């Protein structure tokens, strides 16, 4: 299907795209008229080495941002407000559902993506940071060059 093809092009490094969506997901437009659809979300995730989806003014997002800055990385922040939150989390849920098998739960905001792959919320980022896994991932995503 058209959606799956574009998905593969966008995610060359994506692991096990086992199911792939058989039916094209409908484009959800929020009341403002901005189309939050699969395309726009995936575009953001694919085009930026590091993306953080977060509610505006969220302090957790601030912490993630500062952590990444500490590594010399400037993440793209996708502002989620009340109007588009439902649509965004819906799209993220679909995105996550395709890539991983066990991540069936609703994505919590803030959510960080590195190299097109979901890292998770603040706790996952912290875990990766402490265990030393974050830096290799950042390098892999070409967010870091050192």
């Amino acid at each position: 299907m058209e959606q799956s093809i574009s998905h593969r092009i966008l995610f060359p490094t994506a692991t096990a795209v086992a199911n792939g969506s058989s039916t094209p997901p409908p484009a959800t437009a929020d009341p403002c008229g901005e189309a939050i659809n699969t395309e726009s979300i995936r575009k953001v995730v694919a085009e930026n080495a590091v993306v953080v989806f977060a509610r505006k003014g969220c302090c957790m997002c601030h912490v993630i941002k500062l952590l990444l800055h500490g590594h010399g990385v400037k993440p793209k922040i996708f502002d989620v407000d009340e109007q588009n939150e439902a649509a965004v989390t819906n799209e993220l849920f679909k995105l996550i559902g395709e890539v991983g098998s066990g991540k069936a739960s609703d994505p919590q905001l803030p959510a960080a993506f590195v190299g097109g792959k979901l890292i998770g919320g603040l706790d996952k980022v912290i875990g990766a940071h402490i265990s030393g896994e974050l830096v290799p991932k950042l390098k892999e995503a070409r967010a870091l060059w050192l």
Partner: protein
Amino acid sequence: MEDGLCITAVGFLPFVFLFLIEFKLTHSRNKMNSTSTHFVPSRRMDIYEPIHQMTMWGDFKENNCEDLSPPMILEIEGKLDNQSEETSHGTVGPSSNDQEASRRPDKVQRRLAQNREAARKSRLRKKAYVQQLESSKLKLIQLEQELGRARQQGLCAGGGLDTSQLGYSETINPGITAFEMEYGHWVEEQNIQISDLRNALQSNVGDMELSILIERVLKHYADLFAMKATAARIDVFYLMSGMWKTSAERFFLWIGGFRPSELLKVLLPHLEPMSEQQHFEVCNLRQNCQQAEDAFSQGMEKLRYIVAEAVGAGRLGEGNYLPQITAAIEKLEALVRFVGQADHLRQETLQQISRILEPPQAARGLLALGEYLQRLRALSSLWSSRPCEPT
């Protein structure tokens, strides 16, 4: 108001004054037991009512009421000076002096004024007494609560708990009380595990046994973080205050617990001997902790700013602020997540230590950590038992 009115009238037209009093009496007749032989002090008209009665009735020559003689008035004044407004319904003897009273209005007015003054003083004394009673009652409730908590903590916690920390008055939440009890048990179990580690290291047991002990300690910390998460949902301010810990531990408090990088600094010498690789990794870990802590601290600053903004929104000074504080409380939901994330950082750090190091090293590290915290608690204990300096 009525006093002022009376006093102005007194100097000029005593009889007009009497008519005015009668007017007032007419309106407050429901308060008066006009046919009773007692004088019933109503709240507003007070003791001087019967005296008004006397003069009025003396004027109109009504004889079906008992009147007060001037000596009786003096006696009542004396009583007022010594007790509260609940005056006795004393016997009122018949008087033959009502004729005199109407003939000497000045003396009567003076007596009336004195009575009013006495009544006013009595009201003020009563008010002060009642206020004192109420504040004593509040203090009593607080003391009872403190006592209850001190008893529970004294039963459950090991040494190192100073009850002087219980000097604040907040309504006690049963969930929080349960947490404090659980924490007391946790500390006791911690002490047991520390001495087990000590014994194991001293008796040179094998790596397998050490690993088991290490797992036990790590799981015990995980239990603590789970307990804290529950308590945070009940009252995050309480958790952040660190009132459940000892005073010295509070001195080092950071987002509701210990600061991982600080502890690593304390532990580092006790982990030796380490390989170069291990040394590098541990230093790296400490640096990562520091970075994460800084990010958290800044996040907390931002949260404080957001909450302050919410509390101070709108016009300050109008006295109506429920919407603002409601909004601020919503913002404070984030604090619960912060504490959870800080605990997660602590847990990850402990896990990472056990990954980097071999069992004997990790065991030494966890033993050192445990005893360090024990020392802090002992410090608090000693601190609170210091003799007070005489002023």
